[in-house]
């Protein structure tokens, strides 16, 4: 059960960003955020201690090199 509510979003806006959200926006934003929160929570189990975002650039290069090494990269 995801408890991310419009009231919580309003509090974040007020506390972190120093502005008030219109009442009618709160539930819309909460509804947009909930599935992202669920997916992020589930995937976060795959994050390991030594990982960092810049590994991604190495991954791209490695996958391109791997393709060339087996002759896929024409």
């Amino acid at each position: 059960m995801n408890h991310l509510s419009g009231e919580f979003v309003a509090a974040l806006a007020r506390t972190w960003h120093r502005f008030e959200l219109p009442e009618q926006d709160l539930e819309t934003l909460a509804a947009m955020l909930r599935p992202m929160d669920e997916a992020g929570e589930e995937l976060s189990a795959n994050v390991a201690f030594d990982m960092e975002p810049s590994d991604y650039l190495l991954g791209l290069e490695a996958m391109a090199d791997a393709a060339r090494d087996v002759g896929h990269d024409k």
Partner: protein
Amino acid sequence: MKDGIVDASLCEIADSIAAREVSAVEVTESAIRRAQALQPTLNAFISMDADGALEAARSVDQDIAKGAPVGRLAGVPLAHKDMFYRSGRITTCGSKIRRDFVADRTSTVLTRLEQAGALYIGGLNMSEFAVGPFGTNVHFGNCHNPWDPARSAGGSSSGSGAATAARIVYGAFGSDTGGSVRIPAVMCGVVGIKPTQGRVSRYGLMPLSYSFDTAGPLARTVRDAARLLDVVAGHDALDPTSSTRPAGSCEAACGAGVAGLRIGIPQSYFYDETAPEVAAAITAATDTLESAGATIVPVEVPSHDQINLIWAAALAAEAATIHRKWLRERPDDYGALVRRRIEFGLYQPATRYIEALTLRDGIVRDYCNTAFADCDVLLTPTAPITAPNLSDVDVGDSENMPALVLLLSRCTRPISYLGLPAISVPCGFDSAGLPIAFQLIGRPFAEPTLCQVGHAYQQLSTWHERMPPLVANPGQGVPES
């Protein structure tokens, strides 16, 4: 040559100008006339620079007359999404907030195109701040689809798709963060390439998302788009995130054929919500490639649903960082859809955002090792539907907006999270006369292979030669050349 000016592809017109069969001035005057004639119908341009383009065209003609060496795009009129900065000129980014913004630098993409001799006739319409796949814009007016002006041109590079399809220009650059080159390409029936993350410099390109922004070409043929990409690809010291890997020639790869290549057809996700007419056209295109010697292979791909969600979370977090000051001080200067799609990034935990980027390495390795284990490229629809009515997608921030956005971008956005290269190639029309296209997805930096396959398909098909009725029919107010 008069009819030939409109009919010619980018490569053909460049060759004709270089051979002095037609002058750059004639070609440019023709492009400007079409742009002016079609503007009331398509609203493809935000700004035009007819005088500057003609002056540059005269310079090209003089160089050619003197026998001076000229570039591969010499004298070819182009126009670009109005978010590529040019020093000293206004770049609106399709927004009210930047309506008068004068750039202090010139983007590397524009610099390299001009070094190759290309001409610039104006800034093209786009979704505000490059947010939104519909091509709607509350500040500059919606861009309209040349195949049916009541339809969306796709977004966010709406003007790039419309101006190229309407044969106003021979090609255009757009940006693609989740499908913004590929979606207008499919909706307008032209070719669009989203390069590998880091293949093309983003220096001087309005930022939306540091992690996912790419710049790519739209053109009528694969070979045309390949030439445009070749001109701009490669490392740029001004963009430290650009790859130092040498760029293979995409244009040289055109003509190699597909014999021996393996084309993977994903068995899940990409075809789930595809309209029957789109699915039939994709199947026919697959059959064409098989008849040319390609091997068609069914492949399993990892789940995309979670990828889509963490892409959206990370993109919004980055966009909200860029826009936070204006969201606080000028919220009413954003269109409703754009503000909503950016502002939810303000409420993502920093840890969640960094996790989304941290996981990217493992996910792209897993994807490549799984999806490309038995094939060279993947073939999918570019979009599951053809161009929707503008009245159906001009929905602001209504409740059904997120679902509409996801539907239109469901085949493109996961590829942006992965950072893989992709090309959209026209492969048919539906019963309403609207274009359909397939998307080829490759391993990192495999743009030449994508162009090889796409070009081979265009040698066996004529979809890209069709002209929108309002361009083909001079009676609708469009000059012949």
